[in-house]
């Protein structure tokens, strides 16, 4: 009797468990069982169980068997009264042709009373390559596609080009209109002999009557400039860039006449006093300065020989 009771109790317990277990199931399906390599296939997993049962999913990494897992959706949970349904979609692919098996997946069902496994059915899928028609000739690689012309694609290049043309135009205009670098104005015309130039300039200065109109500084400045330019051209030293003492020293080297030297000394010193010391010269000083300046020029005119090949200087000169 006792044995019967124990048997009945065990039967009830196991029966209840069986009842629960029978109410939990796993359903695994794929969209197709034939695909081209690289195609993506959906693997749908659905686990149905009672609320009380806790389902532990198998860990799916980056592949299932030899199939590559492209992506996994989140587990979608739906509750229906006492039941609960878990759904997940896994996208699979393969890059080699052949038959692939999706092995049985094992889910753990944990109940208060016991723990059991729920196994899915294994599935199969074949991946095949494209059928190549070997009767047709091999075609060349397709050329790049022609993009239809659109002006907006080139707008910045066009604007840049316009700016560049404008910049070049203004640069050319700037350089064309720029003031030419100042040319050095020659102090004298080399075709005109030094003494003729000097005598002409002295004559011109005299005719302007500068000192008679109280322009003493200008008169003596110009007179000494004419004389210095003459000495520079005639005796080939930098008279325009020399001071009075330097000019007298150079003059003494080439002219032996004491009178001429003395006269030049007086002319230059009077001019220095007028130019730099605000001295007002006497009329005699002004007249004498002009006379002596002429005398210096006339006394140092080079004497030309008959064949005009060799030019000699005046007897007053040392350098003949």
């Amino acid at each position, binding site marked *: 009797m006792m044995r019967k009771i124990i048997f009945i109790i065990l039967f009830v317990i196991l029966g209840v468990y069986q009842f629960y277990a029978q109410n939990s199931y796993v359903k695994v399906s794929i969209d197709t069982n034939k695909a081209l390599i690289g195609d993506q296939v959906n693997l749908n997993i659905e686990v149905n169980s009672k609320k009380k049962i806790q389902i532990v999913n198998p860990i799916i990494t980056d592949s299932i068997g030899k199939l590559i897992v492209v992506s996994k959706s989140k587990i979608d949970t739906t509750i229906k009264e006492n039941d609960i349904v878990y759904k997940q979609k896994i996208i699979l692919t393969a890059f080699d042709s052949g038959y692939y098996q999706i092995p049985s997946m094992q889910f753990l069902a944990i109940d208060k009373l016991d723990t059991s496994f729920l196994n899915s059915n294994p599935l199969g899928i074949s991946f095949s390559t494209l059928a190549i028609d070997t009767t047709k000739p091999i075609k060349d690689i397709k050329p790049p596609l022609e993009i239809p012309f659109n002006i907006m694609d080139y707008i910045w290049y066009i604007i840049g080009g316009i700016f560049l043309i404008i910049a070049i135009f203004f640069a050319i205009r700037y350089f064309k209109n720029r003031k030419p670098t*100042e040319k*050095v104005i020659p102090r004298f015309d080399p075709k005109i002999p030094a003494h003729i130039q000097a005598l002409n300039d002295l004559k011109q200065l005299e005719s302007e009557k500068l000192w008679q109109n109280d322009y003493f500084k200008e008169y003596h*400045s110009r007179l000494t400039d004419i004389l210095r330019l003459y000495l520079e051209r005639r005796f080939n030293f*930098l008279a*325009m*860039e*020399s*001071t*009075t*003492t*330097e000019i007298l020293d150079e003059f003494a080297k080439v002219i032996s006449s004491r009178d001429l030297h003395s006269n030049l000394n007086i002319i230059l010193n009077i001019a*220095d006093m007028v*130019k*730099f*010391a*605000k*001295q*007002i010269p006497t009329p005699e000083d002004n007249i004498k300065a002009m006379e002596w300046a002429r005398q210096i020029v006339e006394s140092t005119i080079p004497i030309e020989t008959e064949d005009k090949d060799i030019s000699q200087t005046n007897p007053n000169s040392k350098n003949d």
Partner: protein
Amino acid sequence: MADIREINEKIQVASSFIDLLNLEIGKVIIGQKSMVERLMIALIANGHVLLEGVPGLAKTLAIKTLASAIDAKFSRIQFTPDLLPADLIGTMIYNQKKEEFTLRYGPVFANFILADEINRAPAKVQSALLESMQERQVTIGEHTLKLPEPFLVLATENPLEQEGTYPLPEAQVDRFMMKVIVNYPSREEEKMILRQNTAPTSQNPNAVINPQQIMEAREVVKEIYLDEKIEKYILDIVFATRKPEEYNLGRLKNLIHYGSSPRGSIFLAQASKSMAFIKKRGFVIPEDVRLLCNDVLRHRIGITYEAEAESITTDDIINEILNTIEVP
């Protein structure tokens, strides 16, 4: 004209000491007339002189003699790498007896300073001296003290021994009115130097003037007439160092790194006036400018590596400018 006559008369009186000074200095210094003349110009123009020359060319003797002839205080400072600014300008010393700090004046408190081998001292000592040259005063602790007048600094640079030196920066060299190159005496002069130094007796200069006369002379120098034409000549020269291409000196453009500062124009004008004073003239002539141009400008012009490679000096550049710019 009356103005110039008045100035001339004043100068005749004020410059009478120049002959006496020359006479006294001539007792001791043989030759080196240019150096002595430049020292007097700087003294009258209230400037300072940088001397460059090999040792033994009577640089120290010249300034010492000048100080003796003017009856002024003279100090010689040998610049060394371990010299401190306090060694130059002075410092505050704690007096244990009085229990207070007292001033100890440095050698810079003199009328004539010979800063020997200035480029041997570090920059801070050079700065201390150059600041006192510029400001004519020094600050020790909380005390700002005026330096005595006249105050003339004669600094020397030794061109042969450049190792272990601190070259003077351009900004500080610019403060010297003139940089004078001292050359060897002529054979005849050296013969006289030799005789003078081997003679049984030696002559000492007498004090013929006092510092006050120098100060009065400075006032007269300010009245010396500088014509507009001379001003233009000075400006042409100085500007030609900056923009040579504008003065038909385009060939110098690649040789000049930087031209003279405005101090160059100011000092050239002041020095020219002093030169006129020494020559007892009440007005400046171009010759005064020409004579001092090299001394006033040679340390204010920077030359390029190209010029250095061709051994072109600032003197060559100045001479080229002088030979191109027309004398008024």
